[in-house]
């Protein structure tokens, strides 16, 4: 059976790993290549690197990081952050990235999804969506959840799928950093509405939260950062408990 995936996410700035609580305060949590290697040894199924570097040297630094990761890691990994055009994606693919993740750039220019899918194949394109509840609606947000758009989350995800997204990474900004569990209500709605894999993100605080998200929403993967970075949840323990709960995992 196809296994549910556990994905640690590493936020990277200037070649170092950082993780913000609710994406605002940043704390240094180590060397990304060493962390990545460590996670692959622990049994992580995949890794996501989100680059939040803002300098002009960004692409060069990131390409070097991607090459180092590809040299040392034997599991798939995704790169996100600041990919605005085909050339950005091409440089990362050639450096060994398995997938790229686009977020704001896709909202601002939805045709970018079509172009990337056509050039590299749908399997290369993850569309990341940051969502926050406003009134009684789930609204797509940009800039780490600070800037609301006019798009409703489910509508945007369906549009992304039809344009060629191969996977959806859905982060609830209301849950992110809170450790109260994933937003299972929204995740189930989204997962039932699309025919591409969905990665749940935002809110993981305990092993039970991972059990719940797979049991209640049937998403394909669950992503988290701080609970892994600070050793609060160890991946072998997490997978052991998922297996006890009859959730298919790779051990």
């Amino acid at each position: 059976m196809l296994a549910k995936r556990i994905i640690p996410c590493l936020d990277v700035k200037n070649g170092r790993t950082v993780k913000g609580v609710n994406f605002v305060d940043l704390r240094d949590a180590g060397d990304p290549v060493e962390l990545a290697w460590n996670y692959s040894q622990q049994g992580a199924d995949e890794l996501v690197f989100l680059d939040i570097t803002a300098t002009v040297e960004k692409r060069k630094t990131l390409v070097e990081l991607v090459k180092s990761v590809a040299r040392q890691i034997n599991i798939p990994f995704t790169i996100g952050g600041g990919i605005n055009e085909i050339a950005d994606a091409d440089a990362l693919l050639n450096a060994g990235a398995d997938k790229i993740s686009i977020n704001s750039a896709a909202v601002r220019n939805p045709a970018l999804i079509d172009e990337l899918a056509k050039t590299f194949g749908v399997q290369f394109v993850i569309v990341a969506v940051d969502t926050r509840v406003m009134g009684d609606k789930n609204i797509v947000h940009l800039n780490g959840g600070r800037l609301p758009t006019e798009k409703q989350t489910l509508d945007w995800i369906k549009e992304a799928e039809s344009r060629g997204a191969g996977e959806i990474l859905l982060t609830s900004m209301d849950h992110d950093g809170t450790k109260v569990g994933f937003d299972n209500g929204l995740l189930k709605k989204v997962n039932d509405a699309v025919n591409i894999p969905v990665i749940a993100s935002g809110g993981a605080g305990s092993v039970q939260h991972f059990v719940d998200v797979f049991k209640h929403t049937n998403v394909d993967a669950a992503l988290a950062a701080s609970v892994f970075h600070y050793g609060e949840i160890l991946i072998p323990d997490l997978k052991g408990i998922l297996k006890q709960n009859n959730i298919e995992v790779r051990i």
Partner: protein
Amino acid sequence: MIGIIRYGAGNIFSLTATLERLGIPYGMINTEADFELYDRYIIPGVGHAGAAMDKLVNTGLVPAIKALNKPTLGICVGMQLLTSYSEEGNADLLDLFPVKTLKFPQTANFKVPHTGWNQVFAEKENPLFKSIPLGSHFYFVHSYFIEYDPLYTLSSTSYINKFSASIWHDNFYGVQFHPEKSGIHGETLLKNFSKI
């Protein structure tokens, strides 16, 4: 030493990085004369099977590939090229295996592409799967699959239906999953291939 057949279909950085990490020597094949320099070959491939076949035809290497008698491993789309035909681009392929590459049907409960780690079950004795436990997980990402055929299927995986995770006929091998991304078992498979 492994010769990697270069024809411009997809990125091979991860594959070469993995071979380097494992200490498996390799070189590149760009012309027919290069085949003699190596004792086994890999046909890589990512993307669209029909487009990949067009690129391979343009290299002029197709007759030489069809005549190879040393161990040859196709990976992902490189595996699909070994079959007779793909629904992706309605393309005639190398026809080294009289089986077809088909699109996963749309179903309510299964998403496409088939993305992630799935279990692989070897169905025959073959050194390619030496020291790899039955049911080990390998990393897949594909929307087209090679039909199951007891004659040519070396290992199988189930997703929507049972299909060929790997195929084997004489000196030709193909794997649908990505051994270079499949953790320790993927590394074992590549080491096994380097010794076949």
